[in-house]
């Protein structure tokens, strides 16, 4: 795996740039305690998700067993091993949102994007998530796209909203 990673990096300057960026971070932080989680965080920022190559590479660079790296990545929900879309749509199904029609909103989003929670659309535009209460119950039902919160959603409104994101 590591050997053909090198070959692949030589063929793919974009990927190489990402690994170089990760390298810079590791060089700065690698000596610190608990750096594995920080490094994985940074890697996810750089790559958008955590490809297998990156797990393997980080284990080697930090001299941590591969199984430990995989254990950490599978333990924390915020690490993702599948590519994320450019935007994350989180539909709230907490109690308040649920009773005020959150699930009809969720159904419409699923139908429009053709994906379920945890999945990413073919065109990599959206990743769909389900959340339980984002603390905006007064605006229920709520949808969060990236860092913006939208309240009083209806199935029709949410479709118009999604169209605004490229």
């Amino acid at each position: 795996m590591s050997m053909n990673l090198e070959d692949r990096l030589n063929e793919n300057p974009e990927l190489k740039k990402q690994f170089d960026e990760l390298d810079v971070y590791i060089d700065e932080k690698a000596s610190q305690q608990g750096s594995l989680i920080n490094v994985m965080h940074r890697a996810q920022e750089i790559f958008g998700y955590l490809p297998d190559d990156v797990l393997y590479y980080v284990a080697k660079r930090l001299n941590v067993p591969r199984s430990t790296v995989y254990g950490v990545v599978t333990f924390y929900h915020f690490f993702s091993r599948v590519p994320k879309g450019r935007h994350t749509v989180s539909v709230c199904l907490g109690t308040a949102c649920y009773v005020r029609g959150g699930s009809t909103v969720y159904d419409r989003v699923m139908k429009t994007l053709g994906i379920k929670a945890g999945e990413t659309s073919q065109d990599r535009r959206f990743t769909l998530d389900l959340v339980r209460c984002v603390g905006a119950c007064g605006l229920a039902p709520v949808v969060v796209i990236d860092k913006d919160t939208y309240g009083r959603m209806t199935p029709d409104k949410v479709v118009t909203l999604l169209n605004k994101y490229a």
Partner: protein
Amino acid sequence: METRMLNVKINGRDYQVPDGTTILRAAREYAKIDVPTLCYLEGISEEGACAICVVEIKGARNLQRACLTKVSEGMEVWTNTSRVREARKLNVELLLANHPKDCLTCERSQNCDLRELASELGVREVEFPRTRTEWLPVDNTSLSLVRDPNKCVLCRRCVNVCAKVQSVYAIDIMGRGSNSTVSTFLDEGLGNVECVNCGQCLLVCPTGAITERSEIPDVWKALGDPDKVVVVETAPAVRVAIGEEFGMPDGTQATGKMAAALRSLGFDEVFDTDFSADLTIMEEGFELIGRIKNGGVLPLITSCSPGWVKFAETFFPKVLDHVSTCKSPQQMFGTVTKTYWAEKMGIDPRKIVVVSVMPCTAKKFEKERPEMKTAFHYWQEKLGLKDEEAFKDVDCVLTTREAAKMIREAGIDFASLPDEDFDKPLGESTGAGVIFGATGGVMEAALRTAYEVMTKKSLAKLDFEDVRGLEGIKSADIDIDGTILKVAVANGLGNARVLMEQVQKGESPYHFIEIMCCPGGCLGGGGQPISDNPDIKKKRAEAIYREDAGKPIRKSHENPEIKKIYKDFLGEPNSEKAHHLLHTEYCDRSCE
């Protein structure tokens, strides 16, 4: 500084126990009261994962885990209240919710801690519904072991043994909460990662979640085939452990009964891996003498243990030239049987099935290594064989447990069998071959031969006490007629790693190092009977050294059949022919 003694009350009686003692130890050692445990493994796995060991402490609201909680002055502990019993029972029932509960067909039904606990705690029905909707996939990727995550209770013993004792870190807990499993990097499976196949995880697993890849059906098939000549070889450590499987006392020397039982199973020849252990000493001993005389790469490191060999290939690929090129005794045996013996007896090597009985799960992997087909190459030209007709040097490997199982399946009453001898010629061996089964044994056997060959004098005392015993790393200076030979012995891969890091840095002070993958050497191998006696390794080791002391010949180079095989077939030790047949090569596995 003297440890303070604390006054504690356990189940109403007063005891004095040293400060720092856990409730579990206080109960078991001082009060002689057993508290059930499942995940606890002293010194190795003490994570408090199962909560089976809970006890009631006066004044504390919640039940406490006895394996983690330390006693304090005036503590009042109750280990057997109805609240405690109910909690333990509930915890076992929770563990069983997702469990297949197929004890009837489970490999471990006779010695499963989970099944025993369930029965002791009076679990009759499990009221909890399954939380998993599907069965988890069984890991079948390894040539040595099978992991069934559905039977796993997440006690973490295997994870800790692999990491702390073996320093391999092949497995860990993946995922979280009720979705977690013990798995490998990317869930690739044991056969695709750094696992060295040692089976130490299997030995500590309290359930049937880890078992060996069984070869019993293949062996029955061969035994039932009238066209095959089925030959069995038994490793040194098997004879001092197999008796345990039949209720004989720990440390019984069951050599004669084992030979008789294997003969009753229908093996055509009952031979002994001790013969090829003697052969290994000749080859490895001369390799050592050669490297010393010719300024070769030192230290020389033994290569009998396939778990250790894979470890070296995976973690120390840059210093593989230190590892002896000798095949393991198992593989030497297979090669010699299908070349020397086949030729001598006029038997077509393709008809011979070599079955080895080993204390080891890694040997199942070793026999499948693609380079272990030397006998085929020896015959290929002579018999005009095509590449597709290639056969392995060793066909089947049974663990000690599997061999015992076959003996039971055949209805043989092992303990009351008469003692019988091995067959000739490949059943002839010396005390030096026997001690291969204990850590330090290969070293001692090699020293007996190297000393006499180098000095041309007889050793006054054959016992090299400095290299015996169960400590993780032993070292000694051996005076060979004025020349000091610095030697070291490591057992368990965590200890091996320590010595190998010195070698890698070029700082190793030694000339010769023996490394055995399993703690205690082969007698503690992953294929041995599962024992709950904490002194089991000591018992087996004592039996091995008794066996050695009782042998008429105790030096490999004096084995008459060894002299004969060199005279009639191999020529000199390390001759070209010997190199071709008995030596091997290694590969860099750091990328696997």
